[in-house]
């Protein structure tokens, strides 16, 4: 399978787009017609062919443009990538995990040739061919975590594990849903989740931490999370809120289908072998409302989820003000028919929209 990479932007003229293939494989996050927090973890070992679950690190048509956007963000704000001194070994772990996974899962795009500690890494889509010494930082242009995450889609939080807790001690965060690595660096699991409403009371984080502390080598896990973004922005950071927050006021009934995007995070969790740290890749997928509505099941379900979401969650996710306009748009795609269980589009079996 050869991927045709889009030439697109996630800022200014927003030329980002999803091909028909990308829409069909979009990780729609709602498995039923309503949504509430849960510890919705499952094993991350493959999934349906061509789905975002199939490979350990999904590479799609947005790869080259997303990496270009990451470089722009880092040039403006180098603090989006930080690694405390004790996390260097974890950085090498992550570099090894991504290089091995990508070269095995996409042999036509990536090659890794290892001769002892002398490694040659070829990244064809980005035109990189580097030879370096594994575990010797001086042989790479950046630290190991920064080097490899400039070549991997999604954000990466690298968590140290000690004292029965996880600590946000390293990361590459440029495509985030309104949280800041520079603010959270050095915090533990409960500290960086403090702003989330309702979930603490439900004991979600105590259970989630227990699960994460016990993720073992060779048994990665995954879950989906979601929010809403106006315009296809990857960088919705608190640092740049003054640039993107105002854009939420530009929605109109005429442009909402094209401008309003459902933002889904495929979150995966891998135990890192040499450091015993945990890496938490957070991969962002964007899809406009009008593209989502081409799948009848998703049209019906998105309307019901947005309509019935508790006020606290719609506020936290930042779309409470736009919810009425969203519902006016989405209700046109909900004919009241029942939906099939699960997140998949089920295009063959679900009926078209009744008009």
């Amino acid at each position: 399978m050869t991927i045709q990479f889009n030439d697109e932007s996630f800022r200014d003229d927003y030329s980002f787009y999803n091909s028909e293939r990308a829409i069909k494989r979009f990780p729609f996050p709602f498995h039923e017609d309503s949504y509430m927090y849960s510890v919705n973890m499952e094993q991350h070992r493959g999934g349906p062919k061509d789905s975002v679950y199939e490979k350990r690190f999904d590479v799609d048509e947005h790869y080259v443009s997303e990496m270009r956007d990451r470089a722009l963000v880092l040039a403006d704000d180098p603090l989006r990538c930080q690694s405390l001194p004790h996390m260097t070994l974890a950085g090498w772990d992550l570099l090894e995990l991504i290089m091995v996974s990508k070269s095995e899962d996409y042999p036509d795009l990536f090659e890794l040739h290892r001769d002892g500690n002398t490694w040659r890494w070829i990244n064809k889509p980005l035109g990189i061919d580097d030879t370096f010494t594994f575990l010797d930082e001086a042989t790479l242009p950046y630290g190991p975590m920064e080097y490899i995450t400039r070549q991997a889609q999604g954000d990466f939080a690298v968590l140290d594990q000690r004292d029965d807790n996880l600590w946000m001690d390293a990361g590459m965060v440029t495509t985030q849903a309104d949280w800041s690595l520079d603010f959270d660096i050095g915090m533990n699991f409960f500290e960086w989740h403090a702003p989330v409403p309702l979930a603490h009371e439900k004991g979600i984080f105590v259970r989630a931490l227990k699960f994460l502390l016990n993720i073992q080598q060779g048994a990665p896990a995954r879950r989906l999370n979601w929010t809403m973004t106006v315009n296809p922005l990857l960088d919705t950071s608190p640092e740049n809120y003054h640039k993107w927050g105002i854009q939420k006021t530009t929605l109109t009934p005429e442009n909402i289908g094209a401008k309003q995007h459902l933002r889904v995070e495929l979150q995966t969790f891998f135990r890192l072998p040499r450091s015993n740290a945990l890496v938490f890749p957070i991969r962002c997928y964007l899809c406009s409302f009008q593209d989502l509505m081409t799948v009848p099941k998703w049209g019906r379900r998105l309307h019901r989820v947005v309509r019935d979401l508790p006020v606290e969650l719609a506020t936290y996710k930042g779309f409470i003000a736009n919810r009425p306009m969203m519902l006016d748009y989405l209700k046109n795609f909900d004919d009241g028919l029942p939906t099939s269980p699960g997140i998949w589009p089920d295009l063959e079996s679900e009926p078209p929209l009744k008009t």
Partner: protein
Amino acid sequence: MSGAEKIAVTVTDIVPLNDLVTRFEFKRTDGGLLPTFSGGAHTVVEMHDGESTRLNPYSLMSDPMDQTAYTISVRRDDQGRGGSLYMHTKVAVGDEMVISYPVNLFSLDLRAKKHLFLAGGIGITPFLAQIKQLERFNGHWELHYACRTESLGSYVDELTEHHPNETHIYYDDQKQTINLVNLLEGQPLGTHVYVCGPKGMIEWVRQTAAAEGWPREAIHYEEFLAPQPGKPFEVKLAVSNKVISVGENESLLEAMERAGVDAPYLCRGGACGQCETNVIDYSGNFIHRDHWLDDEEHASGQKIMPCVSRFEGKTLVLDR
């Protein structure tokens, strides 16, 4: 499925070190590479001995970067339930066995400016891997290792030869003891202490360090408990709707597994907390042996760790 991922291995070397300890080397049966790991990790070895199956944790002691083979050292316990005896007397070079992926419950704190290792007897094994890991990155460490006698001092020669400045050996029969207060007082700021050995040694180090004002987070310890034999007892498993009997030489967890109940576990040594099980009803006494539950939970009669703990009495009903 419970427990960590499994690896099919072949026993490639067996080396008796002294009267009590034997070293085993495993390589992948399919000829591939083993996963790297972090110093302090253990693997769970499956032993199929006639009718009974035992899964015992052993610290990995080989170089964490060496993916060709894993080594463990097994101390023979003549009073135990037979896991170590099985390894010593039944396992031969060429045998195929199943081990788990590495799991680390005794990880180095990589923030430490210095790592101070305190080992008692077979408790030396996790430190052997940690020392190899630290040596590769020029880490700062020091080892104080107490053995019963010179002849039972596993790996003493190797350690004193390669690391003469870092290694300090104490022989019980020569009345040599670690001067712990003195040792702790002399450590630079940022030192982390790691202790692995018998229960009494771990308690001694933790209490002495606490009395000396060391932060709790700077003291790391690991003690795997072997499940102890005991009187047979009956258990009702409410969720599975089964009544099982736990034999003299098996653990409650092993008895559940024998009955086909998929109970969660990881370390099988009372340390990790994975197998924690709620008690629905009981009449009798618990014999708690784990490190996971605190004293209050042990006294409450509401929880049990079936990997190492037992029960004596009339009725025990578990939420499993």
